[in-house]
């Protein structure tokens, strides 16, 4: 079948302060055939949205080639439409005007513009809302306007950037099934769809193929073909099998890298910390320790039970892995001995366990504590550590790491931090 889109060896970097560059996409390849829905699945920061913007012609790559229907993409191409996560509706235009905006640049006669807009509105189920303003609509209806605006130009490729993630669970599901149904009936004037998402079940539900993205830098780590007929049943064993498979793939690589870093003899402060609050960690530990899990759970199960998105669950799981409170392996998460003790303890003892775990497993926390111990004043300015971190990582990653370590240290009462004075110290107010 003819290929609508070809992405070959694409590389994208962002300039960082001091002439450095951050590699966001590295050697990415992708082809979209006619009649296909391809999912780009990955954690936030894996560059999947960046790739979508390259395809949309909103940005250009530093290396590699992107071609749309055989022609290189050098700007927003006619026939490529996008649906945005935040809807990107114009609040000062009515539903009809918003939808017509997609046609405005095509220089059509007004009558045809109007007819096509009304047809799209009808198709997407917005009948009766033509003269409403976006702020009068619920989130789900707003995103329908987003869909209608994209569909009205009869695009060859529809790009969707996490279109359901700003919606509540019920609305999102309703919109997904409507879309899949329209697509299945061949009612959408679209030839192919690329869907960016971090929701594993959504990808399995909607896509013919799923490309898994790994982070730092973003790469396509594997491709999974979803060989299920539409409409798909979330409860069928095959469906669950695909979901499990993706969970395993997505966690394995990260956890392995984490282990490698920790195992290195001189594991240092250069390990970036992702912000997770101690409350989230405690919460997940308690859930794991309780029935029916008794210390061990399947990641998809616990994500479902705790109503956690992958983007929320993975960082917590990884933080627990880092702190040696749990082990993540093969799509399962299992409490360690320390983790179980943490679950059984009172608050003060928990703080102690947490503090010890910080000293043993988080080099940055141990480092700050050591400096504070050594200094006569038992205090040190934030800039001292920030400068040190910035030798190893980007500026905002350094800020994030410090923020994370502060929040963990506060819980473990390892040291304290005064934000007004930007000062670390050993003193707690007495």
């Amino acid at each position, binding site marked *: 079948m003819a290929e609508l889109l070809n992405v070959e060896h694409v590389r994208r970097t962002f300039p960082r302060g001091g002439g450095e560059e951050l590699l966001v996409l590295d050697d990415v390849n992708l082809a979209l055939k006619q009649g296909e829905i391809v999912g780009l699945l990955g954690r936030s920061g894996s560059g999947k949205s960046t790739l979508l*913007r390259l395809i*949309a*012609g*909103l*940005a*250009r790559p530093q290396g590699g080639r992107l071609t749309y229907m055989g022609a290189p993409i*050098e*700007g*927003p*191409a*006619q026939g*490529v*439409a*996008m649906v*945005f*996560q*935040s809807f*990107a509706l*114009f*609040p*000062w235009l*009515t539903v*009809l*005007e918003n939808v017509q*905006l*997609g046609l*405005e*640049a*095509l*220089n059509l*006669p*007004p*009558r045809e513009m*109007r007819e096509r807009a009304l047809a799209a509105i009808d198709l997407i189920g917005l009948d009766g809302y*033509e*003269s409403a*303003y976006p*702020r*009068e609509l619920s989130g789900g209806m707003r995103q329908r306007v987003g869909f209608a*605006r994209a569909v009205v*130009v009869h695009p060859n490729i529809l790009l969707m950037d996490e279109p359901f993630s700003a919606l509540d669970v019920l609305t999102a599901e309703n919109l997904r099934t409507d879309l899949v149904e329209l697509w299945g009936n061949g009612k959408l004037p679209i030839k192919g769809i690329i869907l960016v998402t971090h929701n594993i079940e959504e990808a399995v539900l909607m896509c013919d193929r799923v490309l898994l993205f790994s982070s730092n830098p973003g790469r396509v780590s594997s491709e999974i073909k979803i060989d299920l007929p539409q409409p798909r049943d979330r409860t069928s064993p095959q469906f669950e099998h695909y979901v499990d498979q993706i969970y395993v793939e997505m966690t394995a690589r990260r956890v392995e890298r984490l282990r490698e870093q920790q195992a290195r003899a001189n594991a240092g402060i250069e390990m970036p910390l992702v912000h997770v609050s101690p409350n989230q960690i405690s919460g997940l530990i308690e859930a794991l320790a309780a029935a029916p899990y008794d210390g061990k759970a399947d990641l998809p199960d616990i994500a479902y039970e705790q109503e956690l998105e992958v983007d929320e669950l993975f960082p917590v799981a990884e933080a627990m892995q880092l702190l040696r409170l749990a082990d993540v392996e093969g799509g399962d998460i299992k409490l360690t001995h320390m983790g179980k003790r943490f679950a059984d303890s009172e608050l003060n003892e928990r703080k102690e366990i947490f503090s010890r775990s910080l000293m043993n497993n988080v080099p940055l926390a141990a480092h700050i504590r050591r400096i504070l111990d050594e200094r006569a004043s038992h205090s040190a300015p934030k800039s001292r550590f920030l400068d040190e971190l910035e030798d190893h990582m980007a500026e905002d990653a350094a800020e994030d790491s410090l923020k994370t370590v502060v929040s963990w240290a506060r819980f473990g009462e390892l040291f304290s931090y005064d934000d007004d004075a930007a000062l670390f110290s050993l003193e707690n107010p007495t």
Partner: protein
Amino acid sequence: MKILPPVSIEARRLLPSRWDLLAAVLVLGFLVAFADTSRFLVHPLSSISGDYLKLDPADLPGYALRTSLRMLIAMGVSLAFTFTYATWAAKNARAGMLLVPLLDILQSVPILSFLSITIVWFLSLSPGRILGAELACVFTIFTGQAWNMAFSFYQSLRTVPPELEEAGRMFGLNAWARFWRIEAPFAMPSLTWNMMMSMSGGWFFVTLSEAISVGKTNIALPGVGSWIAVAIAQKNLPAIFYAILAMLVVILIYDQLLFRPLVAWADRFRVSSEPSDEAPQSWALTVYRRSRLLDLMTAPFEQMMRWSYHWQPPSFGIKAAVRDVDSRLADIVWYVVLALLGLFAAWRIALFFGQAHFSWSDAATAFGYGCITLIRVIVLIGLASLIWTPIGVYVGLRPKLTALVQPVAQFLAAFPNNLLFPLVVSLIVFWNASPDIWLSPLIVLGTQWYILFNVIAGASTMPQELRDAAENFGVKGWLWWKKVALPAVFPYYVTGAITASGGAWNASIAAEVASWGDHTLRAHGLGAYIADAVNTGDFRHVLLGTIVMSFFVVVVNRLLWRPLYWYAERKFKLT
């Protein structure tokens, strides 16, 4: 090509409604007034330099009309300036480097200085005709209006949500279309607000700049400002009351016919997902909206705009999408041009001061006066804060009272308070009081209201839960003010105080020298220093005083207000 009407009015009848008639009268009236006034522009200058102005109340409506038309023209010029200057600054990083700080300096230059420095040039544009003087007057008002409008527009352009821009580009809108369909609408709410603020400031200066007296040039353009000047010279209190009454009416009309509709209309450009609890209402906007005549009149314009979006080929396939690569050569050229410009300006300044034979003592005198005015501004802003903050909190916490007081406070801020100066001066003369002290309150007479209505706004947005919590824990009295009320309104107070203090510096020129008949009261200060220099046509000292005042304003902004504002943003912002 036929334009389809918006859905909302598609099924309306053809016959004109009474709304149409009213709208027609409004528009026609405006056109007639404009034509009538512009005929006057070609009259010889000599016709207005004598004492042609008789204080006849029957003439007053005509004068008020002229004054308000000057305002409107200046507003149009300010808008044009805003759309070009701010857009250039926001879109071009290189230009922005220069243009944004330039705005900061321009807003610190006292407005009367602009007038005194440019009047001769404007008069030379059309020798012997009134047009030149009119231009000078309009320019003066423009300098009082444009800067904050441009700045607000610049800020809006920098904060357009990226996904809206992306959506525009995805659907093939070119830069021109994106400007009118995305960026300008997005900026509209804050621009309208700043237009209102500018208009308030404008009233102050339009009355001041109509009676132009720079050195030997004495011009009194027909208008309320000149009327006041004559009334002061003749110690005619009733005439002053008439003028105040006329301005009240003019401002009310402006508010009802222009700004209320604008605010109500701009409300739909707010980018916020929540429906607003109380959308601003305006009967005039309803008239405009329901009027099919107005639709007919604006339709060709709309069609032209629509058509203009297609002038350039749509940006499909155009490489303009991304410009990652900085051209180093252009950077170098730009910096060289800037350096040359800077050198040239420095050379001219050096030349001017070289010829002007300034001594250090001259500069020291101006600086000393600057300190006196600084103390005056600080003390009076402090006093105004002490009075209006508690009152503002009290009012803001009571919604019914707020609905009553807030419009009054805004109106008072819009009223040209220099019309009241003669009354105060006549009292000072009567009691023989010290001008150094009693003229001082005049500099915050008009600007103190910014503190009041900002504090009211702050107190009224204070979350009910915070107030409940304070009450629940028995936080009362001074503790309540210290821990609850004052921190909650602090960011709003700072915004108000910044505006008030900026206005106070400008007002000092009008307030530190005031006369009543043949009595002229003079307080010591930089404002009086500049005003005197303007009156005697001593440009050297006008310039020196202006530079010193700009210096003070900029330094106070940098050292006091800016840190305070960011501190408030960080520490007290309730989100």
